[in-house]
């Protein structure tokens, strides 16, 4: 049931929103951002920073827009003198005890205190007294607390209380002595605790991992999807000088709300690994791409392909593998590494999943078989096709049984025996594609950095192989392949890169986002 619509005017613009909406959220729909600190759409309302005070006509005083529901006929002024003066006052007060150490602060460049002070704060301070000082504190986990920069918005406290349901943070002391404290003998070691770093609007909660690593304005950002587990949390991949330096959650109400787990967040170094397969190989020696493909086609001639694929590869890859084994005979198999599940209690259907791969759902949709022993059943004479698996993890029995080995991957394959052809491919942040999460939501990831050497996107290399095997096709981009798979796979019917957007779409008949 939808709530009845309420009509009001914000900054002269007519707005209609469901009853019960806050003025702050209503203003967003009109394209008006009301500056705020303590309010966050993923947390309960606190109403304490007093930054979002707005002038509502006929109200006796300024109203906190985060905590005030819209009312019919309301006229709201966000940028009139009265509201501006109030915000200026809040900014001045937030800065009197702030160290103003932006040049050495990690948050600089992505700091809301900095932004709003530049926008509408005072140019100077009237504060003549000594500033409050508290030492930096290690909150455990990946989190460092710099109390001098803290504005006591309590987002972190509310996240741990109401979302993580492990109330280890609290405001200690009172008045201007107030600081964020941890419970005795407790710290931020919970599986989702590092979200407090993203939630912190200033530089008070910092990631130890990212500490002093890069300035915010040096980073390039790309929308992507975390491949740490089957949840498919939407993320932003931040790179600097072609290296991933940080992963951050990207809001998607249907998947991960505003959050991502610490395991996913901190597991990015493999994306920068240097022991890569960077040049194509044919019969054990570096070769041109065309030579390598020809070698692979030669090995596959008349043989069955036993394909073992990494289940974090894209839908496009599994679609092409299905077509390849359709030509050669054989099967595509994958295994799913398991880990402990860790739910975020305050968000429905959000967890670090036991399945630590990103696309088992998509792999199965394209006929790949999930098994604990993907290398079992390599018959004598089969060609073993390894797609983005670790060479060291391939059992020698399978290598011995195979007539030839074709390696399509990111890791250095030179130790593999019977290596007929090797195709260097791009990893997930070096190419475009789509993944299907455990609830059947198809989501795009975008390229964030360049692949090393002559590596090509996996879809590109596989399309070349498929065409060399005789398929009549002309795939120039990942979206071409996605269009082809959408046409030929009923569950994907009607989807395109454009229609997926950056928040994805559930497969036909799937339960993606149920209950949200």
């Amino acid at each position, binding site marked *: 049931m939808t709530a009845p619509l309420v009509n009001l005017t914000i900054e002269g613009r007519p707005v209609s929103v469901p009853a019960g909406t806050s003025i702050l959220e209503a203003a967003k729909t009109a394209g008006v951002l009301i500056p705020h600190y303590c309010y966050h759409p993923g947390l309960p*309302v*606190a*109403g*304490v*920073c*007093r*930054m979002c*005070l707005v002038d509502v006509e006929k109200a006796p*005083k*300024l109203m*906190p827009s985060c*905590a005030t529901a819209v009312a019919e006929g309301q006229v709201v002024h966000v940028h009139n003198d009265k509201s501006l003066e*109030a915000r200026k*006052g*809040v900014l*001045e*007060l*937030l800065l*009197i*005890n702030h160290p103003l150490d932006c040049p050495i602060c990690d948050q600089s460049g992505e700091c809301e205190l900095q932004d709003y002070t530049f926008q509408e704060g005072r140019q100077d301070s*009237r*504060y*003549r*007294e*000594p*500033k*409050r*000082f508290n030492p930096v504190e290690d909150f455990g986990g990946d989190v460092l607390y710099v109390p001098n920069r803290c*504005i*006591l918005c*309590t987002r972190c406290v509310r996240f741990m209380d109401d979302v993580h349901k492990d109330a280890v943070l*609290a*405001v200690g*002391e*009172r*008045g*201007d*002595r*107030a600081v964020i404290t941890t419970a005795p003998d407790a710290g931020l070691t919970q599986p989702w605790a590092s979200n407090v770093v993203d939630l912190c609007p200033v530089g008070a909660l910092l990631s130890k991992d990212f500490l002093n690593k890069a300035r915010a304005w040096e980073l390039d950002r790309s929308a992507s999807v975390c491949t740490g587990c089957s949840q498919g949390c939407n993320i932003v991949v931040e790179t600097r000088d072609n290296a991933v330096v940080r992963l951050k959650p990207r809001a998607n109400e249907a998947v991960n709300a505003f959050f991502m787990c610490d395991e996913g967040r901190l597991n990015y170094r493999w994306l920068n690994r240097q022991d890569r397969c960077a040049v194509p190989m044919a019969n054990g020696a570096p070769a041109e791409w065309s030579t390598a493909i020809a070698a692979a086609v030669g090995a596959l001639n008349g043989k069955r392909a036993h394909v073992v694929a990494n289940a974090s590869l894209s839908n496009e890859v599994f679609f092409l593998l299905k077509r390849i084994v359709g030509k050669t005979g054989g099967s595509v198999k994958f295994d799913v590494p398991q880990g402990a599940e860790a739910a975020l209690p305050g968000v429905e259907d959000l967890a670090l999943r036991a399945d630590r791969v990103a696309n088992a759902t998509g792999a199965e949709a394209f006929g790949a078989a999930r098994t604990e022993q993907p290398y079992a059943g390599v018959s004598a004479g089969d060609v073993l096709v390894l797609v983005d698996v670790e060479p060291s993890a391939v059992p020698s029995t399978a290598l011995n049984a195979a007539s030839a080995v074709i390696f399509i991957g990111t890791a250095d394959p030179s130790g593999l025996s019977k290596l007929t052809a090797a195709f260097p491919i791009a990893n997930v942040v070096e190419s475009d594609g789509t993944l299907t999460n455990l609830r059947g939501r198809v989501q795009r990831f975008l390229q964030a950095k360049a692949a090393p050497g002559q590596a090509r996107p996996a879809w590109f290399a596989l399309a070349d192989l498929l065409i060399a095997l005789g398929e009549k096709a002309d795939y120039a981009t990942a979206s071409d392949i996605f269009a082809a798979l959408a046409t030929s796979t009923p569950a994907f019917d009607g989807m395109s890169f454009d229609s997926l957007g950056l928040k994805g779409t559930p497969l036909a008949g799937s339960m993606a986002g149920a209950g949200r």
Partner: protein
Amino acid sequence: MGYPHKTHPRETAILSKHFGETEARTLDGWKKRGGYRALEQALAMTPAQIVDIVKASGLRGRGGAGFPTGMKWSFMKPGDGKPHYLCCNADESEPGTFKDREIMRWTPHALVEGCAIGAYAIGAETAYIYIRGEFTECIDWMEKAVAEAYAAGIIGNNAMGTGKRIDVHVHKGAGAYICGEETALMESLEGKRGNPRIKPPFPAVSGLFSQPTTINNVETLVAVPHILMNGPEWYKAMSLSSPKSTGSKLFSVCGNVSRPGNYEIVLGFPFKDFLYDLCGGPQPGRKFKAVIPGGASVPIQTMEEAEATMMDYEGFVAQGTMLGSGGVIIFDDQQNMPRMIARLARFFAHESCGQCTQCREGTAWTTKILERIVAGQGTFEDLDTLLELADNMTGKTICVLSDSCAAPVVSGLQKFRHEFEALITGKRSSMSTGAKLTAQSSQLSAAASTGLSV
């Protein structure tokens, strides 16, 4: 008053009639003085009838805001299927106020009776008396009285044999001024940090444990039995100036005055007579300079204003201040107003819960500026900053602690600006202070320069 001084002939001792009589603390002693007859009468009536009587009496909240009590009670909808709660605000922490303390100390059963009637009137079966933690003596007496009342069957599962359940619990606060704010008190009662809540929702809709709750001051509740016994007309007739202010009220008097203590007068009493007659005027050889009439949160009055004031809700407002909690703080000509105001500001800075930016930072900054001025390090720009800061701190926060800190600063600067200027220009001779201040201000200055707020 009755204790420690004899009741002044011009007082109207109703609530304070038995102050000083140790026997009144016991159940037998209280019954001998007519105790619990009003409760018996109340339990024979319907809750709506009681609310109507209280409405008709014109009783207004004695905690500071002066909201009509009967109307507050009528917000509690009977039969809504939810448990209702009565909270008695006995967290009396307003500087200069000590009336509830004396009520609980001398007549604890009066409060038990008031709570029982109040709870019944609003459809609550449970009443909590939240007592300031430092009031150890009050807590002892209240706990004894509640235990006696339970043992005698006056309250409990079968209150006075009527089959109605009325539980009264005494809860000890932990000594935070902010827990006297009604929603902070509820948070504290729930076992959380005592931070005021955003209103709406108001307590009558969602209060203690998110249920409909009424919260009343001690003095308000103890007035109710008298209203039931004597009728609303009797109470309403007690009004000397404005018909909107009825009944008797206790005023706590402290500061530079001959006879400090509690005085109970009928509302509308002339403040001039109160100060010079009841309280005995200034100490020998001194002159009154200023008054804070309603606890530290209200604006300061000059003597001119104070002497023209009629002591009721409207009368104080007409003279630029508020009745507040009735804590009268008197300053004489030996006092240095900037120093007094700095001390008040320091109190608010110390007691701010720290939730809202304006209050957390503003109260502390105000204090630092004032202490610097007192230490002789002030500038004229500081005075402008203080006023702008006070404006920024007024009407912008969840509760009114921030406003309370700003009020004496603004009124002090308006009315005693010359004393601030004298400190800034260093013309100490123009001030009515001597060597004592110099010694203390150097202490303050030392504290300010090390950044310690004491």
